């Protein structure tokens, strides 16, 4: 496995010629040069133990097996549930915005804040690997914003949200947008404690992204198709894109918007109002 590109070992890479339908397994070195060795299969994997077994009198000769059945992401899930409780207790609607880099998440937020600030108190938590540019853009709208820089990390985790909530201290009844790191893979796996994930796909991207990154579109409650003002200039099949999204997630809701022209944005604002009503209802019922 390559730490640079995140790709798998040779047996995971399939090359398909779409014209002929030919498929072949690709050798990893064909894909790109690697500076490290790739023999991690169990058969070839031998480890030297850094200790001598007979100096541990408490350990049995043949070892002791401890059955765990522990969820690997259990700790993240626990903190996410704590965040969810904290947010629900304050009637705060938190939405986790996920997309590729460049889909227009920050522009969409700027527009949403400008149009909705009289109706909602809005706070924003920005996640990026580096820079505070996005938080500065949000702050320029007069809205409260906190930036989380993940460094080499490719996604936000529940613990990061917990810390950000501590410094943002969003008021009760407010609307909280969490702008995740631009990445359609990793953020799908990490629950932060949000009420819902909202996937943003712009029409300048490929319409088949829901099929290429199914985990993300499956985890999202809503897909915002952004930049629809550019439809006349790009080759993007809107109905096919929606069909692909429903293929991976039959329940996904879809709205078409342009953060630049404002087209379709009232539908998004109605969705936000509705989501907040639902949150209040579920909190009151619970």
């Amino acid at each position, binding site marked *: *496995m390559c730490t640079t590109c995140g790709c798998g070992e040779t047996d995971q890479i399939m090359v398909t010629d779409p014209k002929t339908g030919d498929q072949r397994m690709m050798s990893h070195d064909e894909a790109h040069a690697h500076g490290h060795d790739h023999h991690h299969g169990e058969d070839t994997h031998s480890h030297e133990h850094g200790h001598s077994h007979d100096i541990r009198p408490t350990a049995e000769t043949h070892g002791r097996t401890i059955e765990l059945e522990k969820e*690997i992401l259990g700790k993240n899930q626990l903190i996410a549930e704590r965040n969810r409780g904290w947010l629900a207790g304050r009637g705060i609607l938190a939405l986790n915005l996920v997309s590729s880099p460049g889909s227009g998440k920050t522009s969409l937020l700027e527009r949403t804040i400008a149009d909705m600030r009289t109706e909602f108190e809005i706070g924003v938590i920005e996640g990026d690997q580096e820079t505070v540019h996005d938080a500065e853009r949000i702050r320029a709208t007069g809205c409260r914003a906190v930036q989380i820089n993940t460094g080499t990390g490719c996604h936000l985790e529940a613990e990061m949200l917990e810390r950000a909530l501590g410094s943002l201290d969003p008021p009760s009844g407010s609307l909280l947008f969490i702008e995740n790191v631009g990445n359609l893979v990793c953020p799908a796996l990490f629950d932060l404690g949000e009420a819902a994930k909202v996937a943003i796909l712009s029409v300048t991207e490929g319409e088949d992204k829901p099929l290429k990154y199914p985990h993300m579109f499956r985890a999202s409650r809503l897909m915002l198709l952004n930049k629809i003002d550019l439809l006349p200039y790009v080759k993007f099949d809107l109905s096919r894109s929606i069909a692909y999204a429903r293929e991976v997630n039959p329940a996904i809701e879809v709205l078409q918007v342009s953060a630049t022209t404002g087209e379709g944005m009232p539908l998004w604002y109605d969705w936000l109002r509705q989501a907040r009503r639902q949150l209040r209802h579920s909190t009151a019922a619970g």
Partner: protein
Amino acid sequence: MHELSITQSIVAICEENAGGLAVKSVTLEIGKLSAVMPDAVRFCFDVCSAGTVVEGARLSIIETPGRAVCEACGAEFAIAAFFGKCECGSRSLRIVSGEEMKVRELEV
């Protein structure tokens, strides 16, 4: 590279449960639909376990195949991706296995 932070969690779970003893082997269960690549975890494992009681442990990964139940007709079948179509035509599938991400057991 979510496998890096996932492997850090794996090592942390092992450390918490090993009672200070050196871990000889770790068995994981990773479903084939889980978006976690076993090879990536194997790669990260040596790096993340270095300097801990888990260092040098043998890593076994059980890869659970994906299975789904059709919500419309109740048929159960194997799937390679978590979306698809039942023979009855329905796309409404419930995943019954293949999404596991667990530390099954440790040997100390």
